[in-house]
């Protein structure tokens, strides 16, 4: 009950102080508590009369003048000097004075802007280019934030990218980076196979198998083309990549056959 009274009296004080309600208007809102509230609110009004006491105007003005003079003197001490660097430093200190939330927001916006901008710029880069590490780093970030069951699709996409890069490098005669990129391509394919092992068998898995096998076929065609374009010293690496492609393609085909068999055994529908 007391808690309720405390709340009501606080509310009445607010209504009287801020909304200029009279005691009677306030009491109308709480008829049950009228008798108890009245003397309390009357005391409040009496005390509030003291709010009219103000310092002498001459004191207020004199202190203000003295005070502002000190502020001005301090201001002249801290004013930024002329020149680009001091001004920049002053602006930075202004940034520092911002609230933590504002600082974090600015940092996040800047980060997103810069990373987004560099990602766009790096999209068409090839191994050895200045921004290529941004491209691979952003791929790693994407992989990290992607759920496990979707990661296999991403590795297929990234394998396609590597293949495209190898093709372009062969056209441009940038042979030095082809071998490294072939290794990266192998890693992507290995990641695909590893995820397929962990996959639970269902209809969607068959679609993924088809996608992977299609990717292997494409890889084989592209690598054959690349092999024709590159000089002799690069040919063995391409040849090995084609052989690996065949081995891994067979592995995937075997996994697919096993899956189909398992689905038959469990009387589940087969999408083939």
């Amino acid at each position, binding site marked *: 009950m*007391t*808690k309720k*009274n*405390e*709340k009501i*009296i*606080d509310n009445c*004080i607010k209504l009287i*102080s*801020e909304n200029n309600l009279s005691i009677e208007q306030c009491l109308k809102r709480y008829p049950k508590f009228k008798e108890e509230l009245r*003397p*309390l*609110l*009357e*005391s*409040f009004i*009496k*005390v*509030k*009369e*003291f*709010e009219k*006491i*103000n*310092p*002498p105007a001459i*004191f*207020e003005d004199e*202190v*203000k003048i*003295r*005070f*502002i003079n*000190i*502020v*001005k003197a*301090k*201001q002249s001490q*801290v004013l930024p000097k002329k020149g680009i660097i001091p001004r920049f430093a002053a602006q930075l200190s*202004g940034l520092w*004075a911002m*609230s933590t939330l504002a600082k974090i927001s600015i940092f996040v916006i800047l980060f997103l802007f810069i990373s987004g901008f560099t990602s766009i710029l790096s999209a068409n880069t090839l191994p050895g280019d200045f921004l290529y590490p941004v491209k691979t780093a952003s791929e790693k970030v994407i992989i990290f934030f992607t759920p496990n069951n979707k990661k296999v699709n991403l590795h297929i996409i990234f394998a396609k990218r590597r293949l495209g890069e190898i093709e372009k490098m062969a056209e441009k005669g940038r042979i030095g980076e082809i071998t490294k990129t072939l290794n990266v391509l192998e890693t992507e394919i290995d990641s695909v196979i590893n995820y397929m092992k962990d996959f639970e068998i269902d209809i969607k898995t068959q679609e993924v198998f088809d996608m992977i096998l299609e990717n292997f076929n494409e890889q084989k065609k592209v690598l054959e083309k690349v092999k024709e374009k590159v000089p002799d010293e690069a040919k063995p690496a391409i040849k090995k990549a084609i052989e690996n492609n065949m081995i891994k393609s067979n592995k995937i085909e075997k996994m697919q056959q096993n899956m189909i068999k398992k689905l038959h055994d469990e009387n589940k529908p087969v999408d083939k």
Partner: protein
Amino acid sequence: MVSERKIRRLVERAKKYDPEAFSELYELYIRKIYRYILFRVGDYNIAEDLTENVFYKALNSIDGFKFKKVPFSSWLFTIAGNILKNYYRHKAVEKKYLSGIDKDLQVSNIDVQLVFEKELDKQDLINAINRLNTEQRQVIIFKFISGLKNKEVSKIMKKSLGAVKALQYRALRNLSSYLSKKVS
């Protein structure tokens, strides 16, 4: 009523010693601080001196002020409270030195009778306020005389909002009781 956002902006400008911002802050709080001090020391001249000190102290330490859940007004009133403590400490030492009596360190009680010597109609009210305990008296001064809000009072007194409301309720109940007894 000035919004908290505007006060924040003024304080950020004041930190860079912008005279206009300081001027606005001064006008916003000078009267509130003065009334608070006047009702604690009960002497116009001392109240003026101490009020001036509050603003100088604030100017010198505004660099370190941060809006970490503490409104600017609470910070300013805390400075005023510290200045009052110092004043009472000096007064107590002076008193002890002059009289040689090692007692009456409770000078922090409000001595408002001095303020309204000529206003006899206010005497009963002042006596009634003086009969309240320290915390109830503080809430009455902060809220009804200096015009602070519950949130500001709670930060200055380091109490929850609920505790401030409870103190306010009890203070008003006691005040009306003392006043009605006086009348009867």
